[in-house]
């Protein structure tokens, strides 16, 4: 997030912060709604300090929480808002996890229609 805000400040760009809740599959009613509620609450509270930091640096910022597969949702949102650059973090996963589920950052890097910056 720091990298994105720093770049946006230098370039006078707007920052769109996107968080993705990934529901368990196949969804089961009560669990699904619990995951949504918990995810929305957690992200909304995490947006508060980000908005404050953006305000201090006079950076225009917009936030959103969406539901779905992270890579798909990030690419879809970047397309819709015509983002100039996607900045995302990279998680360290085990070999088994990467083999079974793949890496979101790699998927975004492969399929996004705009430049992507992966921050380690």
């Amino acid at each position: 997030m720091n990298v994105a805000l720093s770049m946006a400040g230098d370039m006078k760009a707007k920052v769109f912060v996107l968080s993705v809740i990934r529901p368990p599959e196949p969804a089961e009613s009560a669990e699904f709604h619990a995951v949504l509620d918990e995810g929305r609450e957690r992200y909304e509270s995490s947006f508060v300090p980000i908005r404050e930091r953006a305000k201090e640096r006079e950076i225009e910022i917009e936030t959103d929480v969406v539901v779905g597969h992270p890579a798909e949702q990030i690419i879809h949102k970047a397309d819709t808002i015509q983002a100039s650059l996607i900045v995302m973090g990279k998680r360290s996963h085990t070999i088994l996890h990467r083999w079974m589920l793949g890496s979101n950052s790699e998927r975004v890097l492969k399929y996004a229609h705009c430049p992507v910056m992966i921050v380690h």
Partner: protein
Amino acid sequence: MITNTWALCALWVGLALAATLLAIWFKISTALSEIVVGTVAQLLIGAFLAQGGLLGNTPWITFLAGTGAIVLTFLAGAELDPAVFKTKWREASVIGLAGFFGPFLGCTAIAYYLLHWSVMSSWLCGVALSTTSVAVVYAVMLELGFNVTDYGKSILAACFINDIGTVVALGMIFSPFTIKTLIFVVVSIAVFIVLPFLTPRFFRKYGGRVSELEAKYILFLLFAMGGLAVWAGSEAVLPAYMIGMVLAGTVGKDHSLIRRLRTLTFGLLTPFYFIRAGSFVLVPALIAAPMTMLILFLAKMSTKAVVVFPAVRLHRYEGKSGTYYTLMMSTGLTFGTISALFGLNHQIISQAQYSYIVGTVIASAVIPTMIANSFFLPRHLLPHALPGKPSERTGQQTAAAGEV
């Protein structure tokens, strides 16, 4: 055989813990993970460690699992959005009832004539495969943004109607119609009318204390109406779903209470329910006759398609949107397993038949969604929810993204 109650309890909770970890690692639902863990644990423990395996018919396990099914059904009913239902009730009723009756009658016929199951087993099969999964549908709707469109609202409301059909059939079809049934129906209707007025007032006056009056009140209602249902020869999940629905606009909106009930449900009750449901699945039966499961799966898909598709077209959802709608209504998970377990507990179906039905239910929770999203996504109905069209923006935009 494990005779020490605490050791048996530790085994079950340990399995629940393992299932939760697997669900987190593989991003699958805890319910599915618990069913699979229950099946595998029963197979391994029964074969190598202890005679009787997980002992799923132990009375206290049966009680916890039964309570889990009841509270889970209540929570599913409480997720109903009355506003959505009000705007789309006519269209949803036609499609939802078609979605119920098609597979209910079709799968019953296929189980009876093709698989040569008994009359009662075939009816139970029809009930279990008539379900749809509101949660699976809602998850896809949210992911694609359909939940804010008329199209998405219509599908969700139809799914609720479909599940009401399943729950009512499960509660009524296997019980003899006697004076007890009449008393149950009359009392239920009176309770369902009074509850939406009484409950919020009662909670306002006495609720919000550490003694958890709200949770006790809800559990009392569920157990009392469940007891009445069983006394009348019906099933306890029937009033639970209805109570959830009538309280959706009041209790359902109390996030704090729903969250506390979820803690109780996921932390203790549903692991016992789903692991128990999984422990009764006979893997050798599935391996010995995979065609039976395939026939049941195709029966569910085809009967949903034959009846839902014309009903959907009738409401002007044609082409891909009609096919997508139909496939979404072919999903199912929770009520399918609840129906199958009801059949097994009441000796309506054998353990092998139970295994085929649960296998089919799990397949129907996964495969239709995959087919629908891969081939029939109605892109022209996707909403453009984001503010400002690209052409209206100036300057650069940086998207910073993250995930749970």
